[in-house]
């Protein structure tokens, strides 16, 4: 972590620029940005903890509460909506027995709605953790969920 942070700092003439990359790094390793982690980043970069928080909360990709092992982010912007995103979301809610914005009790899945993922040509689209799943149908969603349930890794 420390080595990686140092490598990031070398890319910029001003160390504050390392803030987003380091926050990404923490979220990758810990799944979210805890208060303790943000205080530590503030110390590293010579910022006040509130400065880290005000930046982190501006960006939608950062999680402050724990999310499930699989973070399902379904696009509901225009092109996806024209091709049935809402009904896919309803389908996911039914399959997972949670509403968008919630996490399953086994902490396996968190479901959220997101704005345009920049993949409109293969709509409807969702992102699970780092990966895009495109040209979705309800059947495809079922297959994806099943494969994730049996997969041992996140």
């Amino acid at each position, binding site marked *: 972590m420390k080595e990686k942070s140092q490598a990031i700092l070398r890319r910029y003439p001003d160390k504050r620029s390392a803030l*987003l990359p380091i926050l990404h790094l923490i979220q990758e390793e810990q799944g979210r940005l805890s208060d303790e982690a943000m205080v530590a980043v503030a110390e590293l970069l010579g910022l006040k903890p509130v400065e880290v928080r005000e*930046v982190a909360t501006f960006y939608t990709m950062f999680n402050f509460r724990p999310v499930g092992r699989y973070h399902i982010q379904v696009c509901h912007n225009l092109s996806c909506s024209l091709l049935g995103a809402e009904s896919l979301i309803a389908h996911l809610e039914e399959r997972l027995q949670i509403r968008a914005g919630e996490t399953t009790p086994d902490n396996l899945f968190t479901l959220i709605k997101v704005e345009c993922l920049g993949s409109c040509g*293969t709509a409807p689209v969702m992102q699970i953790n780092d990966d895009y799943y495109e040209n979705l149908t309800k059947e495809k969603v079922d297959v994806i969920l099943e494969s994730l349930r049996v997969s041992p890794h996140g």
Partner: protein
Amino acid sequence: MSEKILFRNMDLPGYTGSIGDYLKQGGYQALSKALKEFQPSEVIEIVKKSGLRGRGGAGFPAGAKWGFVPKGEDKPRYLSCNADEGEPGTFKDRQLMERDPHQLIEGMVISSYAIGAKTAYVYIRGEFRKAARILEQALEESYSRGFLGRDILESGYDLEIYIHRGAGAYICGEETALLESIEGKRGNPRLKPPFPASVGLYGSPTVINNVETLCNVPHIVLRGPEWFARIGTPKSTGTKIFSVSGHIERPGNYELPMGTPLRELIYQHAGGIKNGRRLKAVIPGGSSTPVLTPDKVDVPLDFESVAAAGSMLGSGAVIVMDETTCMVRVAMILARFYHHESCGQCTQCREGTAWMHKILKRVEEGRGSQGDLELLLDICDNMKGKTICPLSDAAAMPVESYIQHFRGEFEEHVREKRCPFQEGSKLYV
């Protein structure tokens, strides 16, 4: 079939985008030519002469933008590639980065050389993890072959390129918000002037160009500005990548000469309206551009013609909507998006987008009242031309256009106290 420039390599069978494949197709020859044959100012002149205009949405002449960087200052200069592709409907830059990353890198090195930058950043949207990994690997390949780093191709020119990932914020595609984000701040746009070309990243002269813009540069340098200027129209030169999505048979990216008629794009290249239905409306340049009705479908897709038809070429993102589409719902979805993405700095935008979303939602849900359309138009009026950045205008203009072209549909929602399209919108479920 017209000649492809940016998609030429990636359309070849078996092309992987590796440096080996890129070199086999003549990759990095333009860089070698630029460094050996031209002074930086000559590269700027070449790009000016080509007529290349920014592909991110505004269409500003790229060479002119480079020319604004002050000469002879000893401050460092920066190039930033805008890969924060976020305009709904747009998905071209991702393809350019994932499938031919060296084309972008070569474009960035030549452009950095032209403006005298020794450091360049690719600001890529956080969600594009795969594209960022591919670019990262391509950068390593490029360094190892001497196309990046110290003394590039023994020219004495040095350049470092770094990738900077965004973290989910549409507004960071606005160039000054992008700079704030690289500086580790909230993506709040800056007041202009000063423009980034004089006061940009870390207070230094900075040029920000879109991925597609930069990808054109090697081709212009290698084949000459006259060749490039012959493609397209006199004022909108070259090809444009059109991202086609929505109710369309063959969604995808199409690289065509500027000035290609919208009808040809929709009905020939993209296979026509999905399921043989009728066209109802089309967004020509991304969600921020006013909607066009089917009588405008013959418009040539270049900056001037689309403007004359009452909209904008924008990023070239064409969103097609068929006869089953509810226009109130479309306006509501877009208003929700802009509300979500407003950075909150300017009152008109922060409050205006929130009110637009709220009112459109109630109209769509059958809870609208008689005065709602006038109220919406009044809000739009108060949002335009009054804010630090164009997001407010980008939110207001489309909403106005939906009301202007489909007023009857909005009134029907209010009168009938329900959405008349609810059955229709379920057709694709």
